[in-house]
């Protein structure tokens, strides 16, 4: 059953096909990402009403919450890619791990920095050892560990495999870490959007937030395509199709110069 279900995915395990697919998707994803990010943020920052308690400083939520949510989303996608890459020995999935890791790390850093900037006016301090802040910091360390491990081997393919294993170990540990620190200390305000309850936010503030959320997801997808393309080129540089691609590019740019 699984075989036939995913048969349509098979061609994309071939680096060349995936390279061109990513190339085709990239402009659409990037365009949509820029559009939704601009729409969500301009709406959120300029037009949605101020909070009755937090005033205008709550507006950082339109960057903070999407980056925090997708920092975790990026980690799960990285771990899924790692799992696929290791179990079915699909090399492009392993390369995707390396493509996603730095993006996720930057998202985590954005969430931490915007969180600190939000914490200063609200709690009167840049940083507290609260459960969510601590889990997010640990998430950053996990990302950095995966990146460092992947780069520590002279044989790059081996480094990626080992880093994929670490990503999977990390995803098993992440909920444990999260609940441990939650049990340990909590000051952070409760979640703004939950699946099961009515959101604790007015619709006029919710819509721009949801749009920013979509924008960050699209940006993640677009950047992953971009980075995956360069990973594919790096690892396939000795293949004829890459040579041809480079030669074709070289020819066309020469013609332009002439």
């Amino acid at each position, binding site marked *: 059953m699984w075989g036939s279900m995913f048969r349509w995915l098979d061609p994309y395990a071939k680096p060349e096909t995936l390279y061109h697919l990513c190339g085709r998707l990239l402009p659409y994803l990037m365009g949509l990402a820029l559009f939704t990010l601009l729409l969500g943020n301009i709406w959120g920052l300029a037009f949605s009403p101020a909070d009755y308690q937090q005033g205008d400083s709550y507006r950082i939520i339109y960057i903070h919450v999407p980056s925090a949510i997708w920092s975790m989303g990026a980690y799960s996608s990285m771990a899924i890619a790692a799992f696929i890459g290791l179990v079915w020995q699909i090399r492009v999935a392993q390369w995707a791990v390396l493509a996603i890791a730095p993006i996720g790390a930057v998202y985590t850093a954005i969430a931490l920095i915007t969180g600190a900037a939000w914490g200063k006016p609200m709690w009167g301090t840049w940083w507290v050892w609260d459960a969510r802040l601590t889990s997010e910091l640990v998430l950053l*360390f996990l990302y950095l560990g995966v990146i460092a491990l992947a780069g*520590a081997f002279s044989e790059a393919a*081996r480094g990626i495999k*080992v880093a994929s*294993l670490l990503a999977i170990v990390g995803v098993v540990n992440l909920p444990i870490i999260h609940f441990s*620190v939650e049990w340990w200390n909590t000051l952070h305000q409760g979640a703004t959007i939950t699946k099961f309850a009515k959101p604790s936010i007015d619709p006029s503030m919710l819509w721009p937030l949801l749009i920013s959320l979509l924008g960050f997801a699209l940006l993640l997808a677009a950047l992953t395509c971009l980075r995956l393309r360069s990973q594919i080129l790096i690892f396939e540089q000795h293949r004829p199709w890459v040579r041809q691609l480079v030669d074709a590019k070289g020819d066309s740019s020469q013609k332009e110069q002439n």
Partner: protein
Amino acid sequence: MVMWRSLIKRELQLLGRQKADWLNPLVFFLLVLSLFPLGIGPEPGMLKQIAPGLVWIAALLSVLLSAERLFKDDYRYGVIEQLVAGREGLFSYVTAKICCHWLSTGVPLILVSPLIAVLLGLNFDSWQVLVVTLVLGTPVLSLLSVLGAALTMAADKGGILQALIILPLYIPLLIFASGAMEAAATALPYTGQLAVLLAFLLFALALVPLAVRQALRMNVG
């Protein structure tokens, strides 16, 4: 089983001949512990208050550092390559390594714990809780640091890299172990924390050896 027994015997023999492998981490542990009063101040009240965290941070650092070279020699001499190429034996090797690593680093920590209690001014009850957390927690420390050693076995950079990838995974353990000791110090019930530590131990025992085996295969790959 015969294989496992002979592997255990081999590991113990190696430990008997290379005493530095288990003595150095122990000395390191005591040294780190004695640095804290020097850096923070010797007031007994404060020491007693921060003792749970101190003991556990020192323990996890010493266990982590002791695992750094765990697979290096076997890797260099081709032992691991042979085990990976063989049909079975790799899993026995992994479990034997983990057992012996705990015997050589976790058990000594438990044995010197009365000394720690004296150094940090813990009373008898606190010492008992410390021993229970060490008994439940140090095997998990060993399991995770062996995993770190296996992941970085063939890496060009060792040491710091291993700490970088494994220390975040220690966090839950640190929280619950020092939490149990703090609860005991303030006469609160602490069986919950101990149960969580036991759960961590069983969970890690079930999964980490498999991950270690996989990591070794990849490093030889």
